[in-house]
């Protein structure tokens, strides 16, 4: 009885939260004007936005009487893979030097993406 009144409310709440954050992420993608800052918008929607959608989906399956926990797996995989994607996009930005470049690190000689082996430098100068 309680479940039937409160579950739909909880589902609506999580859907609204997810909607809000995915919407903000879309706005951010349009509004921000530089490769690196733009990267911030979608990685954030991937966590809280899609997370809330999936929680709403789990609750809905319980309400319908067919419990499903697949979504927890999706959340888990998403949390593991999203940072890797963001990291690779950031690395491409650094590699093509399409953003403001960072200062050299204070401890080591350079950042690993910018660390070109001597052989490659020779090949590049010959071309």
């Amino acid at each position, binding site marked *: 009885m309680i479940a039937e009144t409160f579950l739909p409310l909880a589902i609506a709440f999580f859907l609204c939260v997810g909607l*809000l*954050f995915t919407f*903000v992420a879309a*706005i*951010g993608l349009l*509004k*921000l*004007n*530089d490769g*690196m*800052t733009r*990267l*911030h*918008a979608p*990685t*954030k929607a991937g*966590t*809280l936005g899609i997370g809330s959608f999936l929680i709403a989906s789990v609750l809905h399956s319980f309400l319908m009487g067919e419990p*499903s*926990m*697949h979504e*927890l*797996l999706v959340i*888990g995989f998403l*949390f*593991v893979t*999203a*940072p890797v994607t*963001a*990291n690779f996009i*950031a*690395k491409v*930005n*650094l590699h093509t030097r399409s953003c*403001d470049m*960072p*200062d050299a*690190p*204070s*401890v*080591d*000689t*350079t*950042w*690993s*993406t910018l*660390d070109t082996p001597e052989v490659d430098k020779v090949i590049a100068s010959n071309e």
Partner: protein
Amino acid sequence: MLQSLLRWLFPHPLLTVLMAISWILLQNEFSAGMFVFGIILGIVIPIGTARWWPDRPQGFRGGKMLSYTLLVIYDIIVANIHVAWIVLTKPNSKMKPAWVEIPLDLKTPEAITLLAGTITLTPGTVSADLSDEGHSLLVHALDAPDPAAVRDEIKTRYERRLMEIFQ
């Protein structure tokens, strides 16, 4: 004898547990048969792939890891709201994106990976690169008028806890 047998059966005990849980979640129903098959998968797959794995991390503390996970989830929610507010209200010209360098005290690759993942998942910061010898982490901050504060927060809030988990 028993110890070496256990070590052969479970080269990565946490991986075994993870495999069993993912199998049961994938099947989307819980029964004794599914549980047993999940355990079998959890034993066979780690043994089959053990030779390609690095050594298992030493001195991993599960309890501290759990409280760390809860802290990160809380931070994700709070920081998401904060960043949404920045995106919606702050004009681009007033935003101060910055590169932040974080000197690492962590040594193990697993711990550094976890730290980098945490930094990316919490809104406002994305981890971009490691230095060539792996002693510092390059982080991009969306809006950081004071990069040193971002560095100190990451070091005290996340890295200190990860040091406790992995040592």
